[in-house]
Every structure is written in structure tokens, then in C-alpha cells.
């Protein structure tokens, strides 16, 4: 593979960057944090429609732009940089991936409305507490009725419908199910999430009527999770880049003892090390994006590298950014903590660095 981006790809990245810089400023983010839904519907729809990102890697037959996962990840990187918090991740990424992965016959009914941002979907696939990876998140389907619970569901409160990964006690086995969020048997409670810009929900299902969209066996599930990991990793390196930029900018302006703190080796070397870690993590995130779009054989391992590297670097970048800002960096008014919250939250979402280091090593076993 070529380790550089094409003109077109760089252009997409810059378009998104400009758009978000304007429409997703931190002032705007702070307003949304206080708002009911937590996101700006207009910004989301014009990302999806005007910029045509609603189905960026969705085949044109479903109304998508038919680009690869590489472009999708470039977009996510910029969303991470700008701390964008709309339903793009849940709906246009996770849900689209789930539907494409399980190759449902109803793709034609469902995907276009997601692509066009007419509907918000999200995927309920993580169980309660640490053991996120459990494929046996206790959700069971019996005779078309779903019972059980899911947790840490992104945008669970704003989604029009839920894509639930559940197990049919009949031999049908694990599959992807569609559930109407408004069904009386669906009990969605908001979780108090550390990351103000990515709201989470805990969902309980009591005898909810549901339709099976398709099988979601082990291979399908890991492909879906790997896509999520790689998307997340690219979003995270974007966030880390923002933290580094912010630290550099502040340390160039802040004067103590008659010199900018950026002229002190302590700060310089902290930033240099951070840049190195960031470049390594970016390489991993880009490489994994290419591997996913090319369906490379070792993509699972590459996805784990990307998540492990980006988890560490984003937390480090956000923490260093606070440290370099000094006291002001610990205040509510300073924006740094908004990214720090995203960093700490993304660090553990879908498995932390140590989990993925172990995963990677297992992927090397003959």
C-alpha cells in the first residue's frame, strides 16, 4: 500500500476540517452539552447531505458515496479533532457497518434513510460493565421477542431505532435484530457519561417484538468490532492532534520568568515525545484503515494495534495538555477537559490498550 493520501483524500479531510471548525466550535459544543439531545441536527444533516458524508463508505446502490474506509477514517480523524458529537458515529458509522456486515436483505430499506440522515440508528452490542467483549451479552430472542439488556449504547436516547445483536435460542443463533426505540417494552435510561459529547444509554428489553435482519456470527461480529475500533482509533488520533496543537499554541503564548514556557526544555521535550507517539499512532490508525478497506488477512491484529496506540496517545496528549496549561488547564472554562473526557472515555471503550495488546499477540499465533 502507498503510505500517503491522494489529492482527493486530502481535500475531503480539509473540507470536513473547515466545516467543523466553523460549525462545531467549542462555544457551540458547550451549548450542545447543555441541550436536551446533545447534538445539532442541522450540523449533522449538512455533514450527511451537503458534504455527502452520510454514507461515505456505503455502496452507491444504497445511496452512499461509495468511497473506501480510508476516506471514512479521514473524516473521523477530523471529527475527533473538532470533538464532534453528533450521531455520525452511531448511525452513519456503527449502524451502517452492522447492516453491511450482516448483509441483510433489508439493506435497501434501512441504509438509505441512514445515509440521507432521515433516520438515526445505533447498534446495541456491548454488555454491562468491564466485560465488554462478551459475545454473550445477555440478550435473547425467542419467537420474535427480545429480552435482555445492553449498555454503553451510544446515542441510545436519540436513535429512532436500535440494531441489537442478540441470540436466538432456536438454532438461528446470533443475529442482528431491529427494534423500535419507542416500543413499550424498551426501557432506555441515560447514563451519566464522562464524555459530554458522546451520550450513552443503558437499555432493557422486555418481551419486545423484533425482526431478525441477518446472521451475526463470530466472524461477522469481529469484522463489525474491528471496523468500530479502527474508526474510533482514527477519531482518537485526531483528538490527540488537537491537544498537541493546543499545548504548542499555549506554550508559545504563556510567559513566565521572562520567557515563553515553550522555550523551556521541560515543555519542549514533553511536546516532542508526544509528537513522536502521535505520529506512531497515526501510522497505526491509517494503516489499519487501509487494511479494513482492503480486507487484508491480518486486519484484526492491525485494528488492535490502532486501538492500543491511539488509546495511550490520546490520554497522554490530553493529560499533557492540561499539565502544560497549568492551573488554567484544570478549570471548567478551559476547553481541554472536554477532550480529556473524550480521551478517558474512548480509552476503555471496546477494550483498553492492554486488552488489545493481548489481542494483537493472539493474532500472531500460528
Amino acid at each position: 500500500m502507498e503510505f500517503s493520501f491522494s489529492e482527493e483524500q486530502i481535500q475531503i479531510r480539509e473540507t470536513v476540517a473547515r466545516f467543523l471548525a466553523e460549525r462545531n466550535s467549542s462555544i457551540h459544543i458547550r451549548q450542545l452539552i447543555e441541550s436536551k439531545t446533545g447534538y445539532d441536527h442541522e450540523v449533522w444533516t449538512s455533514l450527511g447531505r451537503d458534504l455527502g458524508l452520510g454514507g461515505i463508505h456505503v455502496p452507491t446502490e444504497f445511496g452512499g458515496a461509495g468511497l473506501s474506509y480510508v476516506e471514512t477514517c479521514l473524516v473521523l480523524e477530523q471529527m475527533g479533532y473538532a470533538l464532534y458529537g453528533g450521531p455520525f458515529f452511531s448511525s452513519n458509522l456503527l449502524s451502517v457497518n452492522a447492516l453491511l456486515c450482516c448483509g441483510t436483505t433489508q439493506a435497501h430499506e434501512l441504509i438509505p434513510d441512514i445515509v440521507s440522515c432521515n433516520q438515526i440508528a445505533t447498534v446495541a452490542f456491548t454488555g454491562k460493565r468491564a466485560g465488554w467483549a462478551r459475545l454473550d451479552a445477555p440478550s435473547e430472542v425467542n419467537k420474535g421477542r427480545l429480552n435482555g439488556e445492553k449498555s454503553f449504547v451510544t446515542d441510545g436516547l436519540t436513535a429512532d431505532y436500535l440494531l441489537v445483536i442478540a441470540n436466538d435460542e432456536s438454532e438461528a443463533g446470533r443475529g442482528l435484530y431491529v427494534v423500535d426505540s419507542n416500543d413499550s417494552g424498551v426501557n432506555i435510561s441515560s447514563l451519566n457519561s464522562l464524555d459530554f459529547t458522546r451520550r450513552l444509554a443503558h437499555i432493557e428489553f422486555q418481551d419486545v417484538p423484533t425482526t431478525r435482519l441477518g446472521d451475526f456470527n463470530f466472524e461477522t461480529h469481529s469484522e463489525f468490532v474491528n471496523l468500530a475500533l479502527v474508526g474510533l482509533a482514527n477519531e482518537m488520533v485526531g483528538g490527540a492532534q488537537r491537544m498537541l496543537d493546543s499545548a504548542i499554541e499555549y506554550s508559545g503564548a504563556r510567559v513566565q520568568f521572562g520567557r515563553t514556557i515553550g522555550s523551556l526544555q521541560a515543555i519542549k521535550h514533553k511536546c516532542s515525545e508526544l509528537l513522536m507517539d502521535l505520529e506512531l499512532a497515526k501510522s497505526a490508525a491509517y494503516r489499519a484503515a487501509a487494511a479494513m478497506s482492503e480486507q487484508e488477512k491480518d486486519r484484526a491484529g492491525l485494528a488492535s494495534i490502532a486501538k492500543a496506540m491511539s488509546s495511550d496517545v490520546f490520554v497522554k496528549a490530553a493529560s499533557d495538555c492540561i499539565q502544560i496549561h497549568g492551573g488554567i488547564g484544570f478549570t471548567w472554562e478551559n476547553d481541554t477537559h472536554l477532550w480529556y473526557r473524550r480521551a478517558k472515555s474512548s480509552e476503555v471503550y471496546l477494550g483498553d490498550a492492554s486488552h488489545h495488546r493481548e489481542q494483537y499477540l493472539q493474532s500472531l499465533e500460528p
Partner: protein
Amino acid sequence: MNWNSDQIRRDVRIWLETHWDPNATLHEWRNLLVDSGWGMPSWPKRWFGMDLPQGMLPVVFEEFDRIQAVGVARTGIRLLAAETLLVHGTDSQRERFLRKILTGEKIWCQLFSEPGSGSDLAGVTTRADLKDGVWVVNGQKVWTTSAHHADFGLLLTRTDWDVPKHQGLTYFVVDMKQEGVEVHPLKQMNGHASFNQVFFTDAVIPQDMRVDELGNGWQVAMTTLMHERRAANVLGGSRQTRPNEGSIYLEEARENAILTEPYTWYPQRAGRVDLALERARSTGTISHPVVRQELAKLLMMARCTEWTAARARAAQRQGQPQGPEGSLGKLANSTVARQALKVHTMTSGMDSMLEGSDSPMDGIIGEILLSVPAISIAGGTDEIQKNIIAERVLGMEKEPRLDQGPFRDVRKN
């Protein structure tokens, strides 16, 4: 003269037995105490003390604790104010302030740090100008605790811009309850608002509220900070919980509640090492060898940090002065807290995506994640500590200074 601790123990015991009354009002009792000299025995006789050497204080405190007698007011920075005035104040200032500091009637705050001068404290730009016989103050202070409760403030200002920065500072006592002083809460990233920003707009200070000479502000501030460090190393004192028989305890509890409220998150800031092992057990993550490694690192570091502090205290007991080693302890605490943050994140897994009521242990875990970043900043950043250690403990060559000469010409924010 030679002190006899048994004699002192007898004296204080007799005095307490005759005067202590758990149902007196805090005000009555503390005034009695202040007049007796047993409230601040190491202070000069002339100023509510007994001229006792520091070494004798434990004896006195033991007697107070024995019968659970309430001591003088100690919360907040009031005692730093008192100690500073004892060294640098005028008699009339001592007359006016010391008693009501000890009785707890008046609350004090410290006005040193500014948005533009954090690590570089001597770079303060809040100005005091002498106009028509009074000092007129303009500028902004920050990181002030309890400014919204305070009656008086210890204020560091710049009165001369044409001399090197340490020489142009003057120290005042400022009346906080005046028009020119505006206090705003300062909210931290963990949601608490433990500090204030204080804005001075033509605030007025009478000349007799200047502490020590014009241009001597830096030396006075150093005295205050020295006592702050010392206090940080002692603490305890009025910490133990008391039985609730006796109205005076309720009064004291109310007093403490107000001034200790801002500090409720400080244990989380330090990483709550005490919870780490139990969390690993209750989450079952203790069975992960990788978690065990990080947990062991944490517990080892924490114990070694305690032992190192104990070694420093022992050295002081053997007469060695408490020096910059304090910076070593502070640096170690940061390291421990960061490792604790790592361990709590590991043991909580995806639950560390939550805060408040949904976060484990009733939000404690979330508060740890959001508070630890402060430990390497508050009270002097890790970077500053490392400079202090290198230059004052290891004796390495100082950095070239770029802030000499008239402060007016020094590069600023």
C-alpha cells in the same frame, strides 16, 4: 531556661479541668482560651501565647485531646495570617487581628497567585498606588480559597515597576468586604468550585494596613508560604472526630464544614490508593496478571512514598531543618496519583466512561479520573518541583535568568 514537660502537663491539665465546658459557646470558650495562652502556647506571652518551645506543644495537645477540649480556630489560612503578622506586622495590626483569628470570628484568605503569574509568583501585576493618603488596588487574583467567606485578605501587590521584580512588591491586609472587591467562583474540570477569582477595581487600603516595609512584600510572602508548607506537613490537630455531647462541638463542626467544603475532592485528587486493592477484588480484575502488575507498582510506590516521608520527618526530629525535600514528596505523590488513575481505569473498565451517580462507588471513581490531573499542578507544578530538586537538593547549575532588571522591561504575558 529549661522546660519541664511534666510541669507543663500538670499546668495545662489543671487549667483545662477548671475552665473546659463543652456547653459554653465557642465564642466564650475561645476568648477564655486565647487569654489563658494555652491556645497558642508557642506564641509570645504578649500575644496570647506562653513562649513555650515547639517541642513542648505535643504535651499540651495531648491534654486537650484527652478531654476532647476544643482548640483555637485552625481552619483555612487564618493561622498563616496570624504567623505572618507575628513576624512582620505592627503591634496595632496584631492588636486588631490576632484575637479574632484565634476565636474564629474572622475569616481570612490569601491573595497571591494571578492569572499571569502562577509558577512565577514574583511576577504579580496587581498594582497598589498611593493616592490621597490611601492605597488604591487594581488587578486580579486567582486560586483563592474561601474568598467569598473572607473578611480579610493577605494581598501581594506591585508598588514599584522600575526595580527588579522581587523588589517592587508590597504586602497588605485588605478588607474583603468593600465595593472595590469582587469575588467570583472558579469552577474546575471536575465540577467543583473550590476557588475564587478576585477582582480589584480601585479597592482601597488604609496606609496602616501595609505589612512590613514598602518593597518588602516578597520576604513577607515567603514567611506566609513557609508556614503553609509546614502546616501541610503537620495537619492533623483538629482532624479527629469528636463525640457529640456538648453544644460547642456542633458549633465547631459548623465552622469547619464551611471552610473544609472546598477540599472534599482532595483525596480523589491523590488517587485514592486506599481503594485500589478492594476495587481490583470486587471487579474480579485482580485475576488479570497485567492488572496485578500495575496494582503492585501502585501499592509499592505508595508505601515507599510513606516511608520516605517518615524518613524526612525523622530527620527533622533529629534537628535537620525541613528543606526542599518537600518537593521530593510532592513529586512522589504526583507519580503515585497518576499510577492510581491508571489502575482505577483498568479495574473499572468501561465503567470509567461514567461519572456521577452512574460511576462506581457512588461517583468516587469518576471523580478520581477528573481530579488526578490537578495533583501535578496545584501548589507548584511537577516541573517546578524538579527544578527545585535539581538546583537546591542536587546543587545543579541554575538556568540563565531572563527576568532581571526593571520589572517594567521584563517580558510578560
